């Protein structure tokens, strides 16, 4: 069964790999901030009992998978890093709609 934990874990691991690829300070800053947000969301997922039957849950899983795929592509083509960051922001927002941490996400 798909879990938020597993998909957040995949997203964090891809963000780490992207961080090693880029040398742009602005991108590095955004990736680090995103990674902090993902860990905060992950901690919240561990604390809370999450209902996996909701529409929001499915959306969050799909969004995390999209973010993961975008990061994988960006590793091959560094021009795609901004797009990968945007997808990762969207996925973080989707997870936040479930755990309601209200973290200040990237614009």
């Amino acid at each position, binding site marked *: 069964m798909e879990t938020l*934990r*597993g998909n957040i*874990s995949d997203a*964090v*691991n891809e963000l*780490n*790999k992207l*961080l*090693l690829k880029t040398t742009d300070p602005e991108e*590095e*800053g955004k990736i*680090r901030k995103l*990674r*902090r947000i993902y*860990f905060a969301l*992950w*901690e919240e997922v*561990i*604390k809370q009992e999450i209902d996996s039957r909701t529409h929001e849950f499915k959306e969050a899983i799909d969004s995390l998978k999209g973010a993961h795929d975008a990061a994988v592509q960006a590793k091959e083509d560094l021009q795609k890093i901004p797009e990968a960051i945007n997808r990762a922001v969207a996925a973080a927002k989707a997870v936040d709609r479930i755990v309601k941490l209200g973290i200040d996400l990237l614009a």
Partner: protein
Amino acid sequence: MKRKFMKASEQRYVTTCLKAFTIIICVAVLFGCARPTTHIKAFSMASEELATQAILGYEVLNETTVQRKIAEVAADPKQLPDEDTFVGLLEGNKNLAIRMMALDYLRDYSAAFGDLSTADVRTDINEASKDLYGALIGLKDTFKKETGKDVGIGDDDLAIIATAVDAIGDVIIEAKRRGAIKTIVIRADPAVQNVSKLLKDEIPTFAEFVKSNLSTIETEMIKSYQERAEGLTFDQRVKYIQRIRKQHQIVRDTENFFKDVGTAAGMLGTSHAALREAVEENKFTTPELIQQIGELVDFTKSLRKFHKELIESK
């Protein structure tokens, strides 16, 4: 805080090694001894050690969270450490902290009923039984608080255990002692099974979190190397890369460690069930029990190895 943890970890590690050594010696000596309850003692020592290792699993979860936060702050010069930097996953999570308490009680239970099996004088019996009740009451209350369910041991069970322990008498009668141990193991078994199952199912799910904590630290180490490599001498670069390699090995071993800690929690249940089966037939030493003790002792070795590596990597 970090310094304090490292010291505590190192002390715990030394204590763990001494305990393990004692267990191995005891198992070797006790297998050759005649008193039937001596195997119970060896069994309880191994269980106690296993519970300790499972507790360490939660501590690794907690500590790697703090280490990762420190690495994140250090990686970004614009960031400053604040109170949250030093808050681990357990401090901020009541449910996880309660699980550690349950494991603590499980460990106390193992130790107390082991002491009861070998105590030579009544005062020692009294001391061990006090610890045993404390552990069982703690287990009962903690489990209820955490899950909202009964752990499987009630006030009536505790009263029956108390009566059986009292029956051992002032001058210890071995048959009565065995009767008390039998009662304890049978009455406490549902509680041990429930806690063991809860932990066995849950602990492996933390592997990914710990692995990501550790790989984030590794990523920042590599990133830092990328930025500084040109200004370093060959020897300095080698030293730096060796540190990264050590971290890489820890990341690699994490998954197995948590799988093993989960198995350890499960083994607390299966081995207690084997003990229950033995005492139900009034057998205090069986080939299965001896095998269980051997497996428990073996198992703690792999867990200790990882914990040692983690401490040495700091």
